[in-house]
């Protein structure tokens, strides 16, 4: 019971004055924001703006220089059991001898601990997660035998198999074709009914149609007072150039538009 009360009060992710850097470089500086339970939160920003670094700090993979990160009131390391993480898929070694099934089972390690074998429950959960991403038929395949979008869904399944309360995704639709992008975002929207989702991307166009809250990150964090809004100012501050150059015709209230089915999604896309 106390868990429920806690859940009501505490934000899913609470970041206060966080600064992170490697050696002499400061990658993100003095960032403060909150993500509430149930949010579909988008963080956009240019490449090298610190988006992945922020996710890694939330996961406790890199230390913060200052400030605090709390996940449901716990430190990042203690909260790892609550978080599912989908890294950029390009980082994987496709030659590694491993099947889809074994990749997804890996996600149960955080639950199973040091015990040498996966239990029947682990296998059931893996089957369920694969079904959820519609990849159960592919379970015996080698990871190199999948398309980019299929592989991305496998890594989402791996993140979901431990039943996390928050799902973090790093550029989930990079190197995925347009059609698969829509499939993945529709799936995430469905998933968002039961789980908090945070994703980082540089693709404003896709992002704006799905998320309910958003901020821009380029070393500093830029948010609108009403953070369901991407404003021209925010984008200009984050991308450090006039928005018209990078995102021709971004409407002032992009996020409101997604409710209208007639909205042309390509309008908001970042063209480089």
């Amino acid at each position: 019971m106390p868990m429920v009360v806690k859940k009501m009060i505490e934000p899913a992710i609470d970041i206060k004055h966080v600064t992170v850097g490697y050696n002499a470089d400061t990658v993100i500086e003095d960032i403060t924001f909150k993500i509430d339970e149930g949010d579909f939160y988008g963080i956009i920003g240019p490449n090298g703006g610190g988006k992945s670094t922020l996710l890694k700090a939330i996961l406790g993979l890199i230390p913060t220089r200052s400030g605090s990160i709390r996940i449901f009131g716990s430190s990042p390391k203690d909260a790892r059991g609550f978080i599912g993480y989908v890294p950029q898929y390009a980082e994987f070694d496709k030659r590694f001898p491993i099947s889809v099934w074994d990749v997804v089972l890996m996600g149960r390690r955080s639950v199973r601990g040091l015990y040498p074998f996966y239990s029947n429950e682990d296998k059931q959960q893996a089957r369920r997660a694969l079904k959820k991403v519609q990849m159960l038929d592919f379970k015996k395949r080698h990871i190199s035998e999948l398309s980019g979008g299929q592989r991305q869904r496998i890594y989402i399944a791996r993140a979901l198999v431990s039943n996390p309360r928050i799902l973090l995704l790093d550029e989930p639709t990079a190197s995925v074709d347009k059609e698969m992008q829509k499939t993945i975002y529709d799936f995430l929207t469905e998933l968002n009914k039961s789980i908090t989702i945070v994703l980082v991307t540089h693709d404003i166009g896709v992002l704006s149609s799905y998320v309910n809250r958003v901020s821009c990150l380029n070393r500093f964090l830029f948010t609108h007072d009403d953070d369901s809004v991407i404003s021209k100012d925010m984008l200009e501050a984050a991308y450090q150039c006039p928005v018209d150059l990078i995102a021709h015709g971004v409407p002032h209230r992009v996020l409101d538009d997604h409710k209208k089915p007639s909205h042309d999604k390509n309008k908001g896309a970042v063209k480089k």
Partner: protein
Amino acid sequence: MSDSFLSLFELAFVQRMFIAAFLASISCGIIGSFVVVKRIVFLSGGIAHTTFGGIGLAYFLQYTMGWIWLDPLLGALMFAVATAFIMSAPLVKDRLREDSTIGVLWVIGMALGVQFLQGVDRSVLVIQDPVSILFGNILLINARDVYIMVALVVAILILTFVLFKDLQILTFDEEFACISGINVSMLNLLMLLLVAFTTVVLIKVVGVVLVIAMLTIPAAISGLFTHHLKHMMILAVLIGVFTSFTGSLFSLYFNLPTGSTIVLVMGVLFIFSILSRPIISKMRSGPNPNI
């Protein structure tokens, strides 16, 4: 085959040779698969070469201190384990470039070995010829060597069996291992210790320099034909047994140096496998497009 050749198999040292080749194949198939998929071939080469210093030290201490009990393999084990610890030390990992550190340890180990062996008066203490230390002589394996090898192979099998799940995650995705609650630095150290144990098992069979061949070739061949780490290990063990037995027989029959004969048999099989793989993949339909 002549009777005199067949009668060779009744000799204790020939039997030990096959036992040693079998033990070497088990350890190199299992740990070699990790080495290949984790891409730590060079690091493993470093660990293997530093053992030359340990073997030299063991002989040197036998000579100067009269420690006849100090088997050269124990000296090798000491140096291999020490190298694994040095490579895992935070100071080394975070401050230095890994490949440079490997290079430095590699040559220091070799140079120490030369110095120590030079310091032994061979008219007083009979020691193994440096060339056979470097390139192996499976016929020189004594009973104590076999005991040490068995102990190491048992340790390798138990540790790999118990930690397979975590080792698979670590080698596939270190970041995910960290998030999953695996103590990544400890497990990486353990991985290097397993490589160190394997190196010591292999030294007597193929020699310090050729250890890297046994550690990589069977696993590399096996990796061409399988999509599962476990299958890769089993197939690599079988390939190791086949090639080391064939190589040993060749060397006995034609009176060739054993270590290099085994390695050459492996090399030929590797080339043959690469050339035949497209055909086999086609037959199985479901090819891995990447080598």
